[in-house]
């Protein structure tokens, strides 16, 4: 993980869309009186989505003003949580898990595929805004290692060729199917169930 700092080039302003603003107000109302500032993480998350995947400096001030939180506190939160991207990302953000189980199961091959298909450097937007890739810490799906997160979906049990097919689909505008790429269902054993066979669903 590299040092997380705000991107040098920043847009001038940020404001929620009407729909997101209504959502944010609803979200803020869920917190007890005097604890509205706690809504900062979901709001930052939604704002990041609206901005196209990253957090901007005007956004920090906008949310700080909205929640009565000082700017430095919002800044602290945005730089602390790695789920907040601080620089622009591609329309498809390929997050490659490289924590131990995924690494042992071959995440290096996935990285190689990303470098070959997308571009050599992580956290860099390639293909005129089409995509970018980054290494992330454990995505919590070790049972299907190695795993890649794209948008809100997990692509699991990947290897080099499977990743290349996945990236080709993305590039061609097709929507690849989330889940295991090696044919197994969910996190069942590869050759089908080995126990509890007599139990009917």
């Amino acid at each position, binding site marked *: 993980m590299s040092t*997380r700092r705000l991107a040098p080039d920043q847009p001038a302003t940020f404001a929620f869309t009407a729909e997101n603003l209504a959502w944010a107000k609803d979200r803020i109302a869920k917190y007890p009186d005097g604890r509205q500032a706690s809504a900062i993480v979901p709001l930052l998350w939604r704002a990041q989505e609206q901005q196209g995947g990253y957090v901007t400096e005007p956004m920090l001030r906008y949310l700080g003003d909205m929640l009565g939180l000082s700017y430095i506190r919002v*800044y602290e939160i945005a730089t*602390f949580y790695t789920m907040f991207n601080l620089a622009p990302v591609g329309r498809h953000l390929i997050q490659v898990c490289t924590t131990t189980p995924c690494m042992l199961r071959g995440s290096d091959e996935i990285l190689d595929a990303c470098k070959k298909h997308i571009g050599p450097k992580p956290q860099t937007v390639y293909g005129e805004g089409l995509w970018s890739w980054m290494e992330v810490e454990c995505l919590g799906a070790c049972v299907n290692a190695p795993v890649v997160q794209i948008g809100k979906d997990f692509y699991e049990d990947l290897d080099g060729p499977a990743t290349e097919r996945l990236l080709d689909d993305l590039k061609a505008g097709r929507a690849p199917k989330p889940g295991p790429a090696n044919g197994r269902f969910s996190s069942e054993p590869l050759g089908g169930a080995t126990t509890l066979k007599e139990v009917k669903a």
Partner: protein
Amino acid sequence: MTKIIIDGKEYDLDPNLTLLQACEAAGKEIPRFCFHERLSIAGNCRMCLVEVRMGGRPGPKPVASCAQQLRDLPPVKEGQPLHEIVTGSPTVKKAREGVMEFLLINHPLDCPICDQGGECDLQDQAMAYGHDKLERFKENKRAVTEKNMGPLVKTIMTRCIHCTRCVRFAAEVAGVDEIGAIGRGEDMEITTYLEKAVTSELSGNIIDLCPVGALTSKPYAFNARPWELKKIESIDVMDALGANIRIDARGREVMRILPRNNDDVNEEWISDKTRFVWDGLKRQRLDRPYVRKDGKLTEADWPEAFAAIAARFATTKPERMAAIVGDLADAESIKALKDLMTALGVVNLDCRQDGAKIGLAPDGTRGPRAGYLFNSGIASVEAADALLLIGTNPRMEAPVLNARIRKAWLRGNLNIARLGPPADLNYPVCELGNNPADLIAIADGRHAAFETLKSAKHPMLIIGMGALARPDGAAVLAACAKIASATGMIGPEGEAGWNGFNLLHTAAARVAALDLGFLPGQGGRDTAGIVAGAGKGEIDTLFLLGADEIDTRALGKAFVIYLGSHGDKGAHRADIILPGAAYTEKPGTYVNIEGRVQRANRASFPPGEAKEDWTILRALSEVLGRKLPYDSLAQLREAMASDAPHVAQLDKAPGFPPADPAIWRAIGTAGPIDNAHPFVYPISDFYLTNPIARASATLAECSRSSAGRPLASAAE
């Protein structure tokens, strides 16, 4: 009370103490970086680890002693030995060495070029609690970019150990939520939002709080080492609070100013003006007498200057002479000037440069002392539960007092309202508008604020010079005194008593001067009268004792004698300049807002031919043939004590004044209050309120940056 064994000896201690405080109570030293008595507990440096043995068994793992209270320990089981805190066991020693090793992994070894060297907690504790042989880490240390925190605080963030004291100080004490820690883990960095300067008048205190050399004083950078400095305990004069300071001097030069701990006055904070004014002591100094000849000030020697004064005085009638005392004068020189002027028969005396209508009873005699003091005492602000600010902006007029008010507000039961223009005080204030005449409505019980004050247990008024330094100031003061009486603010004397009638002065010299009666005598003129008289030619000779805040251009053809330390407005207008000593250069007595008498000490000698102010007056008196009856400071102080006995009682606040109604009726003069002129705060630029501050380049820079103008150092 909780029984606990600390290093083999049994103690019976308050269960609310933390383990660290318990160990300190037992006389054990616990190293720490993040823990600070006046800040919230963070528990993140892990340096204060101790071992807690429960049920006679060794502790399972070391405990951060700052973050656990005695009452958090599990109850002692029947028949089992008491819990024991061990501060010196091999486990504890090893744990501390481990923490120190972690801290030093990324701490640069630049002590030889670090300004903190010699007074660095990390340096000292590494010597005392570190490991002296381990060298396991060969990796490069992390490097952190410097952060801009404004013209006062220099940052070398590679040295930061992330104790977060500065973050907590800014958020809690200063009330400016502007410092924070961004990033996480090894990439954590302390900074301000987008590296803006901290907008606090107390920002310099983070330099003292920083246990390492990450935040140091920018003006003091690379100037001196702590061991070559002479440390003088003294009193600050930048505001009327009388903050206790330590002046560090090398030779004749004041190198820096630090706070001293005094829980009753300034706790351990001082304002930035107090801390960084020292470069003003070296600039614009009056270092020899001057006499104006043919319209030009020319250098002179003492006998020549005195002779010129004597010649002038010999031809001037006493009723055509006047004297004004400035804001920084010490009680000794005020006393000497008053005695000299009285001996000459001069009654046109005043110490209220701003024209505040205080100190005099309606009949022109001296008013009661309670009429111009901060009667509750500074520390009692914390006991107040309702506070009405009248024409005062304590953040500018006494920033450390403002921090105290904020502290009381943070505790949750202080209700603060304000009659005056809006200003950000770093705590929420209920605005009552800015109609001065509302005071009469409050006093008569026709205003909502009346009920709030009346129903409060410890109600308090703070009346600023913005409310009193105006033509109807005496009526404002009378209305305030009436509010105080009507809302039960004036309680009994003594321990259980209360008095919430408080004036907040802006001048350090004011209370002492009022105590010594440097006020217009029978038929005498006040400041406005003196200035107007000089303009009209009715006052021929005017003596200014460091008085620069009057309109010196309106003095007409009057012959002006200026005794002071700095070449400011007063000296520019003067016909004779007598070079005096600044507050760091003379032993002096100051009386703060609450009436506490404190002694300042000499840290260095005045420059050139300048002398201590009272000695100049004593020498002058001999030339004038009105020899003052004291030859030494001790004799002068004796004379002062016979004038005002309480001036001999040092470091003691007078306590709540008597509730005698006669006293409270004698404060101010009842009358109409001018509603057409709202209150205006006396201080427009916090950093430039007196001649010394105006001579300081550091404070000029602060003034520029606080006014939003670009920083000269921003490009660095």
